[in-house]
């Protein structure tokens, strides 16, 4: 008999590691894309520096969160491109690799490559952000939460498109709206008071508000902190769960 025997069906994330490596090799060729992934953040930081340098700590933290958030856009583009143009879904999903292994492998591969420039911003931020170990740990946890949220959203979105061209417009609208318009780069206190509760429940701006309050840039009530942290935790968990289920469901067309 052929030597390839099925592995235990209980291994839900079978193939994830190896597919992560595949995606890493693929993405690593995109030097220009890696560099340009920081353009928006860089430009906004320069604006802030010119306009009001006292806001730089907030903006640096925002730039890190925004970078993690826009990785979801890359997952969206990559997942749709591989499925539509390369038929990679047919190759990888009709195989022992699980749908969730495929989705998370792709997302982690993209993260591994694009986290480099984010670390560079993190390094620069050492000069302006008053880090303590606790603030540093908070930043890491929040950044990863925002990434998980956006990568999951991106993968789910990717399944709705039949044509790559249609994606560009929607994805840049979505990611710039929630990542730039809402108070991620600037303090929540400058956002209209009536709309603040909305900012506190949207993942990128909720994470930003928690970080801003941790460095004393804004003051949040205990209720607001609970709202932002609670909303973020619930949304990330739910969307990740939904993305795994959706990945399984859409591994077969109707």
């Amino acid at each position, binding site marked *: 008999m052929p030597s390839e025997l099925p592995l235990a069906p209980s291994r839900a994330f*079978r193939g994830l590691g190896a597919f992560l490596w*595949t995606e890493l090799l693929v993405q690593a060729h995109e030097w220009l894309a890696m560099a340009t992934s920081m353009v928006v953040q860089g430009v906004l930081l320069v604006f802030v520096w010119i306009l009001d340098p006292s806001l730089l700590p907030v903006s640096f933290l925002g730039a890190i969160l925004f970078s993690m958030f826009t990785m979801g856009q890359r997952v969206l583009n990559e997942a749709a491109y591989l499925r539509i143009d390369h038929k990679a879904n047919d*190759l990888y999903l009709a*195989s022992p690799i699980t749908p969730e292994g495929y989705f998370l492998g792709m997302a982690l591969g993209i993260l591994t490559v694009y986290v480099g420039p984010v670390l560079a911003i993190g390094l620069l931020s050492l000069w302006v952000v008053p880090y303590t170990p606790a603030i540093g740990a908070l930043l890491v946890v929040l950044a990863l939460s925002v990434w998980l949220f956006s990568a999951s959203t991106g993968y789910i979105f990717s399944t709705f498109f039949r044509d790559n061209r249609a994606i560009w417009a929607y994805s840049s609208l979505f990611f710039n709206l929630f990542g730039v318009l809402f108070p991620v780069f600037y303090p929540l206190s400058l956002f209209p008071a009536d709309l603040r509760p909305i900012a506190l429940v949207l993942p990128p701006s909720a994470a930003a508000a928690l970080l801003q309050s941790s460095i004393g840039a804004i003051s949040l009530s205990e209720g607001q902190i609970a709202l932002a942290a609670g909303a973020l935790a619930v949304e990330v968990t739910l969307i990740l769960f939904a993305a795994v289920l959706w990945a399984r469901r859409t*591994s077969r*067309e109707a």
Partner: protein
Amino acid sequence: MTGEALWSDQLRKVYESRGAPPVEALRGVSLEVHRGERVALLGRNGAGKTTFLKIASTLLRPSSGRIEIFGEDVDLRPDRVRPYIAVVPQEGKPFFHLTPREQVYTYLRARGLARETARARTESAIEQMGLESVADRLAITLSGGQRQRTMVATVIATEAPLLFLDEPSIGMDPFARRDVWDSLRELTRKGSTLLLTTHYLDEAEVLSDRLYIVEGGRVLVHGTAEELKRSVGGTLKVTLQGPGLVVEEFQGFGHCVSDGSALTVIVDPQRLAELLQIAVRRQLTAGVGPVTLEEAFLRVVGRSINAE
């Protein structure tokens, strides 16, 4: 693993899309593929071949009917079927930023093969597909045929028990096609089972132990290439052409197909001389050759495989 490699019963698929009438792509396809066999679905564009393959490979849900792979229900337990299969998708492309060697190797690793096995199988598949000279070039720099060979290499290297190949040799030059055919035959010697689709008659004839002719979402006939050719009702075909051609004069000799200016008549060798005498008298040009799968296809489907 129990049961036939693949078995389907009355498989139907209707594509529903908003703002367009539903498309009945499969209208009750029943077929079976025994273990170790090479079976071809032969049909024109739009016959339903890809649809069948996508359902069989767990990528598309059927509208009704049943399909099993090694005794597992494909629609109910795709997760149990997937470890047994590998697919060369129609119009699939390798990752542009991987080399053929990386593509094959990383795919095998993702399927859970150990490093050593994956490395050895990668080298052997690259060699079988004649990709040695381009094995370390990024796929984006390869020709269409080389990319397709990379896809085939990726999939045959898995040595999965059941392989699906959707139009495997499309875009390849004649030499590369031979290599692919040889490799696929070699695979079944190792114990794999193959289901491929093609609209190339020679590919179906050379490669398959049995074939199913598919048209309009139905299986019209199946059997070995020899059986199908015999069913045409003669062993020779004569193609006649010329201004003096009167179709009625030849209809008594056997099955006749006229395509505009030429008439093809299937005859028994005993009546060939008689037929040719008429042709000479009418000053027609006549070409005589053995019956091929083309005539079988034409008789069964009523049109040429390349007709739109």
